[in-house]
């Protein structure tokens, strides 16, 4: 008999609704089912099995039944031949071999105890991920602080949302990616999208831009003529192509025009904001022609963009949306702040038909940043330094407040401390492939190798798992229950559709067993709903208040937008009456571009110094640990290609498909060239989904934003040249993955 489950896609924050149908009946969740494929790759040489589940898009306000290729093919990973289904211990020879769960848990317990006995509590660290369910993210924070007693926990969301989050907190007093339902965009006349390529990263989102395109009001800011920027063609709107690293200046120029052309919403500014005068002074020096000189965006386009935004605000509605392209910089918080200031000048936030939002990236990037995975945070988006918040959590957890450690280190600093004398010596990694996804990836890999003990929870042998002393196999999305919070701040149910492999376990189960072995205070349930009930209590009264949400109402299909205090009906639209600061006003903070560090000199006479920007492809997700294992996706994008303008390529003797070296003082990438006029002649683009010699993050700098801790991913100097005969060839582990999965 077939069973089906209504759930959501495993990948990005759009969380497209899907229905999974299985031919097999489900056993109770607590009993893992049979292993669908042999764990040993040597015996996996059978023809690739059919996906055990049928995936169908499901009608839902965000995706309206649509899915992208990643979602359509997601089920093929459930029984992938490379799936890890037993704990694996690395031997002295570097080869991972299966061990039993009891032995594995005992080893983790011993490693934690040994490390902490010798180096102190903070020598054990935890690195989490924005893909974890709310229940797991919440429990990971609790587990780290109470069971491990460490302050050293942070997560990969630091690489995604931290700048927008910090800017949102500063301006609005609260950070919810979209403070309005996504469908509000449908009727907008003008949408300004900065540094977000939704056509590749979350394709079904594009449906919500159609209204603005029809009105000629889609304005895309991107140094590349990205797939999203192409939607502005044929009267759809405008494409602004600033030089990489000049987004902040462009935004100041837009605000300048709004103020000087009398387009600001003076009534809104007076009634609902503070700090206006300082912002006026700060943007005064950024008149359009000066901004043109800095950004390369013609003054007339700057004026026209400002006027269209103002026009939209008065008519159908105007929205300003930011993405990682403008946020993943050392001035990312200030850039997001400049976008928010612009939206406040126009009176967009707090309206029913206009607004500002940031597009959250990872599947649970929103929920994952609310419930205690961040170094400075306790559940409910509480500050770990706030005595009231600490007292509240001590009460919920039933522990003395003194047992809760203070703030830890943000991700980049945490990773820099790996193996250092006063740093982290034993690390637990969850839902994150830091060996590929972190800035200055070579240094991170060296850090991982210098650890006393590395435990990685994953379902594949990711590049990070490959470094681990111990790999613990965990569940995939279709095998578990839980909740995620999508990019709108709406809490969604993830439902189980298939038996997990017999040897795989939920992180909740793992944490419960480890807490028991470590004789931790408080309780650690392995049942998602029980954990969610605890999360409700923990979040009650916090900014991200989930106390009025339960599984039953989610299962009835009710909309649940936080804050959702018990007794309320939730908050689809924030700020309609008040912003979350004490005086109810939004705070405008003046910001200005900072001078940047001078990069190292180019040592290669044959190489040209260019600007590297990084980003995503439609076919792949994040570090590619999953999507590089989907044969259909890999067949389309099997390897990293550096996008290069034909004119620059010609000058360096590089032809389409030729091998190119892209290097700087941190590392080198060797990959094939893809010539395209969609990129500026002085800039190259690399997708960051690929490992080893094709890993873009070998080149990115671990310099961070002083407020958010966000690293500089989108503006790095590189030396580009045609590869010489002696250079190593891109080996491409992804190729070997393909061979593994399709060998017969």
């Amino acid at each position, binding site marked *: 008999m077939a069973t089906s489950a209504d759930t959501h896609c495993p990948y990005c924050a759009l969380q497209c609704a899907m229905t999974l149908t299985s031919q097999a009946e489900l056993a109770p969740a607590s009993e893992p089912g049979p292993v669908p494929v042999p764990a040993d790759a040597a015996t996996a040489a059978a023809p690739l099995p059919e996906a055990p589940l049928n995936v169908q898009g499901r009608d839902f306000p965000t995706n309206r039944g649509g*899915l992208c290729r990643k979602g359509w093919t997601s089920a093929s990973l459930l029984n992938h031949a490379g799936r890890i289904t037993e704990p694996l211990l690395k031997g002295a020879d570097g080869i991972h071999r299966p061990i039993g769960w009891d032995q594995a848990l005992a080893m983790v317990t011993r490693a934690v105890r040994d490390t902490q006995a010798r180096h102190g509590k903070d020598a054990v660290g935890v690195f989490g991920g924005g893909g974890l369910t709310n229940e797991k993210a919440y429990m990971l924070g609790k587990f780290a602080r109470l069971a491990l007693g460490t302050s050293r926990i942070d997560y990969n969301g630091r690489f995604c949302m931290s700048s927008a989050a910090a800017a949102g907190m500063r301006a609005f007093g609260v950070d919810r990616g979209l403070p309005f339902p996504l469908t509000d965009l449908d009727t907008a006349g003008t949408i300004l999208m900065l540094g977000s390529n939704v056509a590749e990263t979350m*394709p079904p989102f594009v449906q919500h831009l159609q209204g603005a395109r029809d009105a000629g009001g889609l304005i895309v800011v991107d140094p590349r003529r990205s797939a999203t920027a192409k939607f502005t*063609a044929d009267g759809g709107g405008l494409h602004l192509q600033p030089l990489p690293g000049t987004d902040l200046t462009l935004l100041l120029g837009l605000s300048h025009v709004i103020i000087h052309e009398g387009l600001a919403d003076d009534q809104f500014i007076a009634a609902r904001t503070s700090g206006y005068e300082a912002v006026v002074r700060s943007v005064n020096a950024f008149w359009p022609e000066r901004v*043109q*000189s800095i950004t*390369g965006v013609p003054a*007339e386009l700057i004026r026209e963009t400002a006027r269209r935004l103002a026009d939209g605000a008065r008519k159908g509605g105007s929205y300003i949306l930011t993405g990682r392209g403008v946020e993943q910089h050392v001035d990312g918080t200030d850039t997001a702040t400049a976008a928010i200031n612009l939206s406040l000048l126009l009176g967009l936030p707090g309206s029913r038909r206009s607004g500002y939002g940031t597009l959250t990236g990872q599947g649970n990037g929103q929920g994952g940043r609310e419930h205690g995975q961040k170094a400075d945070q306790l559940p409910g988006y509480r500050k770990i330094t706030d005595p009231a918040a600490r007292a509240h959590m001590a009460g919920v957890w039933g522990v003395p407040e003194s047992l809760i450690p203070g703030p830890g280190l943000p991700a980049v600093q945490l990773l820099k401390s790996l193996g250092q004398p006063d740093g982290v010596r034993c690390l637990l990694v969850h839902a994150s492939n830091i060996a590929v996804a972190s800035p200055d990836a070579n240094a991170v890999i060296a850090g991982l190798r210098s650890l006393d003990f590395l435990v990685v929870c994953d379902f594949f042998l990711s590049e990070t798992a490959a470094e681990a002393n111990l790999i613990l196999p965990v569940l995939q999305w279709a095998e578990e229950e839980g909740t995620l919070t999508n990019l709108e701040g709406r809490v969604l149910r993830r439902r189980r559709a298939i038996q997990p492999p017999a040897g795989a376990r939920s992180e909740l189960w793992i944490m419960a067993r480890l807490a028991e072995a470590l004789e931790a205070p408080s309780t650690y349930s392995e049942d998602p709903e029980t954990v969610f009930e605890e999360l409700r209590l923990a979040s009650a009264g916090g900014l991200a208040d989930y106390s009025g949400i339960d599984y039953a109402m989610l299962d009835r299909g009710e909309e649940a937008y936080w804050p959702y205090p018990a007794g309320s009906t939730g908050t689809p639209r924030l700020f309609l009456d008040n912003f979350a600061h004490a005086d109810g006003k939004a705070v405008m903070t003046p910001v200005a571009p900072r001078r940047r560090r001078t990069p190292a000199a180019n040592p290669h006479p044959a190489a040209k110094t260019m600007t590297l920007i990084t980003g995503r492809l439609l076919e792949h997700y994040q570090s590619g640990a999953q999507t590089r294992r989907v044969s259909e996706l890999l067949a389309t994008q099997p390897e990293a290609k550096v996008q290069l303008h034909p004119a620059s390529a010609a000058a360096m003797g590089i032809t389409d498909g030729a091998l190119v070296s892209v290097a700087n003082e941190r590392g080198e990438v060797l990959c094939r060239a893809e010539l395209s006029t969609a990129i500026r*002649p002085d800039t190259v683009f690399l997708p960051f989904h690929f490992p080893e010699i094709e890993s873009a993050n070998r080149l990115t700098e671990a310099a961070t934003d002083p407020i958010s801790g966000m690293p500089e991913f989108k503006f790095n100097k590189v030396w580009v040249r045609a590869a010489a005969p002696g250079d190593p060839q891109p080996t491409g582990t992804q190729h070997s993955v393909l061979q593994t999965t399709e060998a017969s």
Partner: protein
Amino acid sequence: MSEQIVIVGFGPVAARLIDELLPAVRGGHVSLTVVGEETEAAYNRVLVADLGVGRTTADALALSDAAALIADGVDVRLGVRVRRVDRARQQVLLSDGTTAHYERLVFATGSRPVIPNLTGINPDPASPVLPAGVTALRDLRDAAVLQAAVDGGKRVVVLGGGVLGLETALAAAEEGATVTVVHNGPHPLGRNIDRGGGAVLAANLRQCGVRMAGNARSTGVEHNAPDGGFSALLLDDGSAIDGDLLVLSCGVRPRTELAEGCGLSTGTGILVDHRLRAHHEPHIFAIGDCAEVRCPDPACADCRTAKGPSGLVGPGWRQAEWLAEYLTLLATGTQEEADALAALPQEQAGVIVLKSRGMNMAVAGSNGADPWDEDALTAGAVNGRPRLQVAQWADPEHGRYVKMTTRGGVLEGLVAVGMPRTAAELVGLFERGAELPADRSLLLRLDGPDQLVGSGPADPAGTVCRCAGVSGAKIQDAVEGGCSTVADVSKATRAGTGCGGCHDNIRGLIEKHFQAAPAA
């Protein structure tokens, strides 16, 4: 102990210096006094013409907030002039009778408009008293005079074909005033632009409704207005240009008299070295319009080719930022630590981007050489230094003109008229000293319609639905297999199930199939 810094002048450059020094003030390392002659704190002079035509408000021009600075502990003295600098006692004497002690003194006195020698105008440059109906355009009061004329529908005569004159004329014309620009020479912008660019520029200005009177030498002003004010500008050929308001836009001159009065060396401006220090006076600095970077070392190659103050605000702001860092280091550490800060790089030749809503123009560097002018191109090409290359494109009919003068692929001069994207790109390349694409025509096509991407895949085997990765051929198969709606095709192939952007193309393939069928 905190260091006493006094800033003379409170214009845009001083404002930036103050902002950058604020952390040191708040930290107790610096105690700061600012002396401003006007009663307002710094405002953005660059936008005075916009204010003069009613496009912005005086409030929006503010760059500093005196009250906020005072709250931060800055000693702000407005409406006060510095009478004298007593270098021996390290103090300044102010017009209100008070004094202020300094350990570091910064001149940011800016410049004042050049008043041309015309019959009917008092030529005293230090205290010009302009007759009614004649104004320069430098401060808020000047803006008010212009605004009254524009609001009253008066005829405006702008004397001077420099960038400020052109911007004023364009703005006033766009706001409905009748404007005539009078300049000497065949085209506006004089030596900043070449002949071709100047001609296209003049034509575009006329297109925007500005009357252009070139090759004109003015000799005097006539005061025959009913109120005894300005009525016409008289030219040396005996003709006159009638108007109600004469705006003098004949350039600016650095204000150096205070520095001269205390014995500092001056050229065009106050002479400073690469650390912005006055010659032989480690306690005094100068930045912005009043400063001329020319070090005392006669062998300094940079200074041999240095031009005087640019009159542009960008270089002044960069000086302010650098000096703030230097002064902060001096206040918090030793002279040696401060001197470890790399000196400010020499400014590029100024970039002029015309501020206008109606037309677009950018010029920078030297643009004198023509593509066929062998002597000019090879001049200076010695010791392996590459020769100049000039690429030029002229389309005067459509008001477009571009000239790129490069050496070794790097711009030494640029002119772009009527080509906004090209201008923006060229200015960026010029400022970064970046190499141009070998095919210069790439830069011309930025404004072409072919840069707008068309839609619709030409190749049937190509991908129609990117989201789901479905080719046109696969969709055709589905249609041939019986799918007759987009929904059918989506169900069969997943095409159109992502962003929905390809629905029209799928529909097109379906229609094509059913149209072709009867004919077959």
